[in-house]
């Protein structure tokens, strides 16, 4: 069943923790209080909270996307994208078509020539 929304979704009632964290910790006016919260710890905790909620996307946002291109890990990496204008790909396509045509006629695949 298609559960996609079909109009405007109002997210205020169920504002996610990530949205709250983003606003409270990264935004708002800065006034220096005389009691210093351990800000470095807070920043690390902010990352931890975000990672808890959306680990993969946060890691990507921080530039850690090695699994996308790693042939041993990534699910999308085995087949690199093919550029439509790539002459080599077009030639490869013609070669495959010729081979398939030859196979269909019962000829050995390498008789067409490279």
């Amino acid at each position, binding site marked *: 069943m298609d559960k996609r929304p079909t109009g*405007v979704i109002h997210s205020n009632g169920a504002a996610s923790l990530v949205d709250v964290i983003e606003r409270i910790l990264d935004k708002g006016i800065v006034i220096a209080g005389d009691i210093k919260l351990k800000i470095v710890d807070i920043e690390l905790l902010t990352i931890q909270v975000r990672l808890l909620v959306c680990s993969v996307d946060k890691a990507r946002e921080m530039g850690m996307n090695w699994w996308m291109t790693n042939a041993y890990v990534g699910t999308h990496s085995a087949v690199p994208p093919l550029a439509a204008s790539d002459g080599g790909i077009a030639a490869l*396509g013609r070669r495959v078509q010729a081979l398939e045509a030859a196979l269909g006629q019962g000829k050995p695949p390498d008789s067409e020539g490279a």
Partner: protein
Amino acid sequence: MTAIYLYGFIDELPVCRRQALVECREFRMDQRFGIGLLPLAGSHALVCRVDEAEYRDPQSVSPAWLAARATRHAGLLCSLVTDCAVLPVRFGTVFSTEKQLRTAVDEPAIAAALSQLRGMTEWSVKLLVDDAAAIARLRECDPVLREKFMALSSTPGARYLQERQLESLVASVLSDHLRARSSLLRQSLQSLAVAVMHLPPAPDAAEHGPHIVGHFGVLLNRTCEPRIHAVLEALAHEWAADGAWIELGGPWPAYDFCPSLLKPDATDDRISL
């Protein structure tokens, strides 16, 4: 010992809401102490007493500690935006005494900023798309793509290569299409809003499925809210068949449209993420 936690500033609050604020327990930073309004020149500081040691001692800070207090901080400010002008202060602003707070705060600047924000609220507008649905729609409606899909080879090897090439083409067409939609959304917002800001795409909740195409912070005059909601509703309905929808968050205090009020001698030792 206790210290003073500062949530933000407001201009005027109706008397009935003041009483509710004092009695409210939901947004207290420390359950032992009520939320207070500290009168300043032309504004009020929203404060709550807290245990000073808790904020000085890094051992007390954990993700759960942080999440609980961040949501209280945000919740209080959000609960007030429909009643008065609200200027949010960044989380974790704590003073040892009221005198320290008054010294650090530029009261005329706060009053001026609140005056600018009076009658306005911030909203977040996200344009999301379900890639699979959007691609299916493109295949169906784009004549060039439809023709190419119809002309795919019947032999598996050639078809495989053609499909990979088409995938690349579809991704490119989809990207242009979504960019145009995002641009149209921004133009629609700009025509009615006081200000529009392009925000970085917030992290998507899921790795697969919908992703955010456009994310905007919008400062709205409250009188314009019904009109902009109607415009967004119309756009969302128009784009629904393409696998796109609009997510609206708000009303928030003007987090993205706050003036810089940091005094020259004050320092901020936060690290940018």
